[in-house]
């Protein structure tokens, strides 16, 4: 078996396009997921028990089922309910955002738990409304504490985004398998695909670890 990586240069543009799509999906789903995650975390603290239960059920369901089936459900089933086709980009973004929201709500919740009861009492004493309390008191502290884990969740979404290749979304994974099938050279192609993912994700995990240490030091003061 001889290996030849040189033919891959022909596909350089295809790989870059795929990576671009992967990054685009990741960034959109990450942004929506953060907002949705924070809203979910607030809903889970609601005074209305049914709201709490529904939010908890949502989170548990998205965390307790394979992402692949969520993608299939959104791509194949949701359009039947909606009466219109979603298209694979919309389905991919929707799925990754809904899933991202569920995992990030847990991160926010952990961050919120560290905010003491006394702060809520202080908000009450100062006559702050629920909205001001959520955005000016809870969010800044929860966000700072949760930031490293949220970024890790973002890296997680980056990796999970490879699954949308299963519904024909032309991102890095899909383009990689297509090239691999067309050239019949899985070893070279799949190794390069893995390396591209690694080259993006690994430095990010290092950066998150560094940031985490800094934040911990800051909070310790």
């Amino acid at each position, binding site marked *: *078996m001889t290996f030849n990586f040189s033919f891959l240069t022909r596909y350089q543009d295809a790989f870059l396009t795929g990576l671009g799509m992967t990054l685009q999906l990741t960034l959109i789903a990450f942004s929506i997921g953060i907002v949705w995650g924070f809203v979910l975390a607030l809903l889970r603290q609601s005074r209305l028990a049914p709201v709490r239960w529904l939010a908890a059920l949502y989170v*548990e*369901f998205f*965390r*307790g*089922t*394979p*992402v*692949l*089936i*969520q993608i*299939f*459900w959104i791509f*194949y*089933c949701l359009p*039947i*309910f909606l009466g219109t086709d979603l298209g694979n980009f919309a389905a991919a973004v929707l799925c990754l955002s809904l899933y991202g929201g569920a995992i990030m709500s847990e991160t926010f919740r952990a961050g919120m738990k560290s905010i003491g009861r006394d702060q809520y009492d202080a908000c009450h004493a100062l006559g702050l409304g629920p909205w001001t309390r959520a955005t000016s008191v809870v969010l800044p502290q929860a966000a700072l504490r949760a930031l490293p884990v949220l970024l890790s969740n973002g*890296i997680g979404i980056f*990796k*999970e*985004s*490879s*699954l949308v*290749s*299963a519904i024909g979304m032309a991102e890095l*994974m899909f383009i*990689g*398998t297509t090239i*691999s099938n067309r050239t019949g050279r*899985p*070893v070279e192609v*799949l*190794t390069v*695909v*893995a390396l591209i*993912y*690694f080259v993006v*994700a*690994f430095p990010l*995990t290092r950066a998150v670890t560094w940031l985490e240490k800094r934040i911990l030091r800051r909070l310790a003061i």
Partner: protein
Amino acid sequence: MDYDFQFHYVRQAWPLLMEGLKTTIELTVAANAIALTLGFVIALLVLSKSRLVRAPFALMIEFFRCTPILVQILWFFYCVPILFGIYLDPLPMGILALGMNLACFNAEAYRAAIQSVPREQLDAGIALGFSPAQRIRYVVFPHAFRGALPVLITNGITLFQQSALVALVALTDLMYVGKQVATQTYRPIETFTTVALIYFAISFPVSRIAAWVERRLDTARA
């Protein structure tokens, strides 16, 4: 919305789905068995004093953690036979791929737990004349296993969910059977919802157990 739900087809396909679930469970249990043992060994190697031993295993862990598991599965199915001349049936190959992935995640959990083994206990092991192997077996492992247990269980359930990806390389697990049934009956809503509920019915109680174990360990430590 006036969709006419028909669970009749799903009921008909139930034995097939259970057949698929059996494969999913086999994958999960076997991969966990590999990862619980191999993960500990990798953790020990990563904590080795020799850089030469440490470096390759640290790189391996990072590689498995920083690439999508789907790429890893495809890599095992398409590249391992060519590179190493290892031809396995789909099920053992799936177990190998998932087991290696999980082993690397578990190694991280073990590593953190091993580092928290109190120095005095190791010293006591030496004082009692334990050989290094005995110290690992009787002092380090029980401690590390206990400390890492909540994360090990969580990783185990995550793998149960991730195992659905082997459906994409045509291994007939629950996900694959579900996709087939959905396509053949034109009833994706009923089928995919049922399949999702089956996954949920297993992973949710186990995640509760993990949370319970974690609380218990926390109280034991406090």
